[in-house]
């Protein structure tokens, strides 16, 4: 029996794998060096890269991985229901094949038809779904939920930085590569915000030379005087610490932040410009997501040390007109899938050291509402893509009778468990020791073990 076959069986058996094999437990992350410092990679090696895709608006997980074998599914969903054309799916309606059954003898799990291009990747173990994953905090506010997820911290607490930025900050060294972090949008999303400078966008300006003087840290006559001129300094990046804390900003602080931000931009844009602007070796569908992934792929291929990047894909708040087989959300899933496939083709064997992680702030109500849509819920799905994954479906699934507040997909896996494992396996660090997830002390069985250690 093939690996993937066995794993889907497990999935069908309703108890999906969680901490079942090979993971050494969190108190002792497999590759975590004792002092919490990362083991430095060989210089010529491609840096592992984690690319997150944030589906903003709260994507409906039930529309992605569809439990078409669960009779409750067709009670909750009418206008939105997706049907599989398999014997035994009594409800299947003629040609409407909204669901492609996965390799699952129990005829339970299917995938939205518009995502079928992922099935070969799933069979090879290069794409794994995680179900019933989400936030331990029950907020159903988009803003709060996205904020909590990107900070990996809850409430309006003291942690204001993003989890990806905290990783960069915790592992920084003098003379770091300037492009360890990248946002392909024109703004840095919360997950990448924080003390470590991260470049946003690729919209460099022709007039950079002019403003380089104005913002360059080398020209800071006054600043040098303040910080002790002539002092031996490393990379100017080392100095670059925008101060943004909970206290009020004064004029001087604001100006320093602006200036620092500008000089960081100059350095990073220059690094980005050095990246070979050659064509991507795959065709991406038109649209903003494709544009973002193209830039990220080029930077990865340039081997300039990119470690974390985020792309955003908005518009998943389907209170109305979510639609069925060929509805709006299905189309968007198709678009997402085309982009993922293009990205993996573009990167080729570099997917050995690159992982895509697709996430959303919350799921939806399992019942559809009266406007062919769904309202804000709790648990949803994640999708990991890369060559370092273990085939299967992850998370805990007890059937659709297992609901939160009788309305929502439950959260059985804390998203921080997925984030922590990603950092651990990709970068060989112990994210808990590095305090990247303050307040998170998972038990061993909470970890999914969906990734293999990198070669």
């Amino acid at each position: 029996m093939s690996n993937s076959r066995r794993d889907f069986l497990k999935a069908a058996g309703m108890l999906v794998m969680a901490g079942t094999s090979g993971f050494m437990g969190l108190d002792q992350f497999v590759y975590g060096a004792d002092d919490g410092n990362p083991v430095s990679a060989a210089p010529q090696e491609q840096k592992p890269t984690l690319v997150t895709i944030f589906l903003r608006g709260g994507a409906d997980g039930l529309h992605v991985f569809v439990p078409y074998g669960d009779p409750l599914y067709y009670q909750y969903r009418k206008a939105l229901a997706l049907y599989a054309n398999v014997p035994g799916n009594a409800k299947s309606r003629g040609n409407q094949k909204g669901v492609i059954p996965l390799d699952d003898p129990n005829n339970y799990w299917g995938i939205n038809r518009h995502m079928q291009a992922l099935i070969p990747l799933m069979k090879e173990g290069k794409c794994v779904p995680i179900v019933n994953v989400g936030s331990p905090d029950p907020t159903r506010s988009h803003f709060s939920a996205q904020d909590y997820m990107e900070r990996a911290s809850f409430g309006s607490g003291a942690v204001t930085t993003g989890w990806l930025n905290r990783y960069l900050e915790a592992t920084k060294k003098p003379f770091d590569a300037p492009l360890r972090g990248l946002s392909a949008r024109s703004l840095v999303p919360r997950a990448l915000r924080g003390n470590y400078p991260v470049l946003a966008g690729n919209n460099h300006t022709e007039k950079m030379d002019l403003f380089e003087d104005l913002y360059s840290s080398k020209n800071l006559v006054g600043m040098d005087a303040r910080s002790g001129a002539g002092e031996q300094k490393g990379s100017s990046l080392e100095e670059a610490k925008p101060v943004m804390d909970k206290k009020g900003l004064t004029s001087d602080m604001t100006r320093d932040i602006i200036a620092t931000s500008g000089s960081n931009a100059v350095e990073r844009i220059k690094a980005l410009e050095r990246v070979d602007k050659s064509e991507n070796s795959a065709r991406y569908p038109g649209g903003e997501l494709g544009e973002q992934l193209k830039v990220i792929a080029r930077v990865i291929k340039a081997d300039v040390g990119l470690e974390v990047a985020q792309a955003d894909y908005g518009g998943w708040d389907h209170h109305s007109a979510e639609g069925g087989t060929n509805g709006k959300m299905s189309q968007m899933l198709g678009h997402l899938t085309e982009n993922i496939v293009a990205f993996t083709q573009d990167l080729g064997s570099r997917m050995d050291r690159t992982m895509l992680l697709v996430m959303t702030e919350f799921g939806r109500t399992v019942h559809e509402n009266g406007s062919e849509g769904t309202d804000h819920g709790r648990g949803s799905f994640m999708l990991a893509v890369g060559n370092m994954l273990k085939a299967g479906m992850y998370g805990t699934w007890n059937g659709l009778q297992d609901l939160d507040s009788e309305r929502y997909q439950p959260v059985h896996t804390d998203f921080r468990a997925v984030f922590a494992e990603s950092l651990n396996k990709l970068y060989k660090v112990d994210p808990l020791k590095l305090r990247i997830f303050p307040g998170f002390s998972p038990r061993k069985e909470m970890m999914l073990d969906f990734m293999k250690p990198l070669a």
Partner: protein
Amino acid sequence: MERRRWGQRFLSIGLSFGLAALAVVGLKPAFAADDDNQPVKKPLTEDQLLRKRINESLAGLRDPKAPQIQTLKGPDLTDREKVIHVLGRLGFGARPGEVDEVLKNGGWEAWVKLQMNPAKIDDASADRLVSQRYKFAKMSMAELQKEYDGDGQNIRELHKEFPEYIVARATVSNRQFYELMCDFWRNHFCVDMPQTNDLSRAWTDADYENAVIRKNVFAHFGDMLMASAHHPAMLEYLDNKLSRANSWNENYAREVMELHTLGADRGYGNLDVQELAKVLTGWAYDDSFQFVYRPEWQQKGPKLWLGYRVNEGYDGGMFALTTLAVHPNTAQFISEKLCRYLVNDNPPPGLVHKVASVFRQTQGDLPKVYMAIIGSREFMSRENYRCKFKTPLQFVVSALRATNAKVDEPYKVTETLGKMGEPIYDCPDPTGYFDTAERWMDSGVLTARWQFAWDLARGDLSGVEVPDSFFEHYKADKPEEIEQKMIEDLIGGDAGDRELVALKDAANDKDIPKMTGIILGSPSFQQR
């Protein structure tokens, strides 16, 4: 018209439900009694009236529960700095020579007093621009429908012109505080312009801007809340028009509490969201884009919401919204947001508390709430001077104003706003755009600003022109003289070492456009 009666309904319904919060109607602040004891009173001069208003607003100070006032550090602002502060903080920044003008005409207080009565400000230039160029700006809903409904070509034009209109108006209007607060409320009661032509409610936004935002900037908070709740643009944007008995839609019910009134997770739960959604079932609009309540869509029976038993029917919805409009959490949330916008990204808690109590005492009388902020010591303190980072809109409009730019067809400007992440009436989230440095400050935003500054100064921004007179004004024999004058005018004399170093070469060449570009792209110009 139905809409005109909302203000009255707002009060009468609230009272008929015996709302405790409304019982304080007519309650005067403590100091008012002292005034009454004066034997014969001369009518107050306008200055005294302003002072009185400020004092009234500060009544909240006497609240024993108020947190300690933040210790304000630094010397007082000079009169000139105060003028720079109000022009930049309560408007989109000074035009050339405007600081001197305001100083000559009574200083910052006189300016504020005038700005609080926008009808008294001559605004012929803005009116001319609007009536000449933007036909939609003064159309009624019926006229808009006739002009745009179903007309794809026309709607596409509107998509382009509507943001231009907002930018142009903010730039040329003399009613600067009014325009600035429109920006605040536009983001608070955010709606967007959908791209699809068939379903497009884009043109209803033109009415929304007038009937919801512009009309109510100086009204009670509840007026604006009611207007937005009844407007087709909002009913469509947050899906309430789809909400019916047994298939209610929670989108609006959630956001009206989270974003418009109480604030996220402040004193309501998910059951309250569900119940409010039921309360508001049947709130929709008809074929002529007028609000309509459809009793047959209303969820039957009373609803239990926020501890109230809300009756079935339209009045139940009015009760709920009225309750929200004057709720203490709303007072707190709106006050905090206003203080963040007008004072500091992390507003002093003492000030927020004070402002919230004014909000509560006046049931959200917005001019009084604004004055509670503007009249505060915190607002005018050294610590809060030039501490805000301009949002993209504030940046581009302030640059256009600072250079006296002639705004013909600011398409390039609105396009740039898109690149900077703030396309007007196109915010991806119902939160509206944020206005804190923390949200905007990153390298992508700055590089776009450099390009904009340069293009504007060089005359490469089509549809917008900096007049020759602007550059000629700075012609002088000595480079230092040019430099000093420009720094004084454009960044209030607040040039750091960076600016001075960067300006040196251009000043020696007497290249005034280049100097303009550098200053507009400098860190100092990003502050207000």
